[in-house]
């Protein structure tokens, strides 16, 4: 193959992987909430955005990057938990449209409040890692210390969540509360607490995603920073099947790579159109998502 084309493909895959990991994390956090509480959380981008601002406000960047990240995560735990207790708890068991309307409203409120308090001017949260691409034989490849940090963190978070759900007592209780709340309570599982914990966890996954995105030298933190990313994460979650965490992750990564190819070979503006087309086609083939196993849902 033409060496120029080869390097172009490698660059696209690497660049796409970085975005894909981000989409995968958003998709994963959506699936966590959907599976544990049956709510399609349209504020899944805005809540972590807000938490990241709060973390920033609590501990300004002057203390350094890592303390600031920890403050953002703590803010995420609080905001996720409070949102579930004060807002979402009233929505369980209601027709599916109610939570959607409420969470879209919440998204708008959070973005407006963030803009009012902290302005829409981007804040930078520069990471300690350089964004300058490495060079291979004199040519830059789409990989820098920062993108490696991004990909590694993303994979680590996703693996941790998978392990938590699959192999721990806590994960077993979280899954049981989601599929069979009444039976779980009869077995002594404190379902109410676990639902709160599910929201805290997914908000933290969102905060880590937001921190990664806003640590990017070129992006920074704005009230709208997660809007576009949320849209792609949402598409990935739908393609992967809202039921399947692994499906969401894989779909997110593939979507990131596909986007990069479309940007490179077609046009930046075609990306969202192609992504939506992918979504429609996949929903036509497998309405419950491409990666979900077909099993009986409940006994």
């Amino acid at each position: 193959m033409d060496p120029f084309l080869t390097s172009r493909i490698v660059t696209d895959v690497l660049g796409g992987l970085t975005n894909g990991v981000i989409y995968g994390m958003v998709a994963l956090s959506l699936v966590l909430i959907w599976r544990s509480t049956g709510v399609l959380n349209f504020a899944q981008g805005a809540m972590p955005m807000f938490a990241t601002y709060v973390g920033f406000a609590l501990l300004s960047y002057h203390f350094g990057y890592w303390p600031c990240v920890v403050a953002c995560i703590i803010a995420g735990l609080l905001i996720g938990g409070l949102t579930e207790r004060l807002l979402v708890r009233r929505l369980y068991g209601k027709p599916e449209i109610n939570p959607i309307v409420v969470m879209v409203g919440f998204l708008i409120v959070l973005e407006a409040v963030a803009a009012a308090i902290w302005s829409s001017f981007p804040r930078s949260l520069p990471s300690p890692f350089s964004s300058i691409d490495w060079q291979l034989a004199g040519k830059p490849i789409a990989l820098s210390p920062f993108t490696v940090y991004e990909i590694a963190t993303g994979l680590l978070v996703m693996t941790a969540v998978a392990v938590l759900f699959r192999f721990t007592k806590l994960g077993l209780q979280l899954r049981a509360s989601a599929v069979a709340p009444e039976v779980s309570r009869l077995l002594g599982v404190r379902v109410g607490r676990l639902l709160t914990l599910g929201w805290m966890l997914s908000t933290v996954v969102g905060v880590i995603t937001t921190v990664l995105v806003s640590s990017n030298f070129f992006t920074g933190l704005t009230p709208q920073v997660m809007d576009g990313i949320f849209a792609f994460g949402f598409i990935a979650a739908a393609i992967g099947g809202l039921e399947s965490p692994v499906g969401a992750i894989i779909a997110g990564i593939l979507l990131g790579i596909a986007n990069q190819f479309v940007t490179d070979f077609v046009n930046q503006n075609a990306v969202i159109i192609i992504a939506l087309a992918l979504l429609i086609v996949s929903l036509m083939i497998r309405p419950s998502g491409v990666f979900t196993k077909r099993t009986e849902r409940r006994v």
Partner: protein
Amino acid sequence: MITIDDLTVSFGAVQALRSVSFVAETAKITAVLGANGAGKTTLLRTISGLKEPRSGTIRMDERNLVHRRTEDIARLGIGHVPEGRGVIGEFTVEENLRLGAMMAKVNLQQGLSEQYEQFPVLGERRRQHAAKLSGGERQMLAMARALIAKPSVLLLDEPSLGLAPLVTAQLMHTIQSLCDTSDLTVILVEQNASSALRIAHHAVVLHVGKVVANDAASVVAADENLRQYYLGLVE
């Protein structure tokens, strides 16, 4: 011991239980019998805190259970095998059992092997999804999942429903031997009155929410009126 005193439960205008009182003694099987809609399931759900009573008390030994949360009642040692069994179909057999053992202060491995000994078929299928079990196997799983937590009280809601007579007989035998070998208090809800009366020590008959008989199982079994009008047992 479970003591129920003057318990009234309603769904809006419908009174599902009207001033129900009886005692389920420790290490005994108390059968609760009655036709469809008599209030048997409602009784068990109220004991477990899934339904708030309108008035009356439910005590386990000296503790009042009313107004406690379901999960706290479970943690006091009340195992409830619900109507329709409630095994989690998308969990494997072993995951169902692990969930059952979660709250109890028991050794998981030991608990698992005890249950697999008691119900060998569950051991053979431990990695299979519970949705793929047969009705009888699911019933065994539901029982094992309640028993692994070593409850002091076991509430069983129509365990024989949908089971072949032979399987029902085995199940009743299992319940009986559990009661004989430990201090387990069993409240056994059944429509299948004859098989329940065979193993029960005590029987309570409900008719549209009211207690119409509350006596030794042998006495209830011998009462022609009860047999004919409330239990549907006609020779």
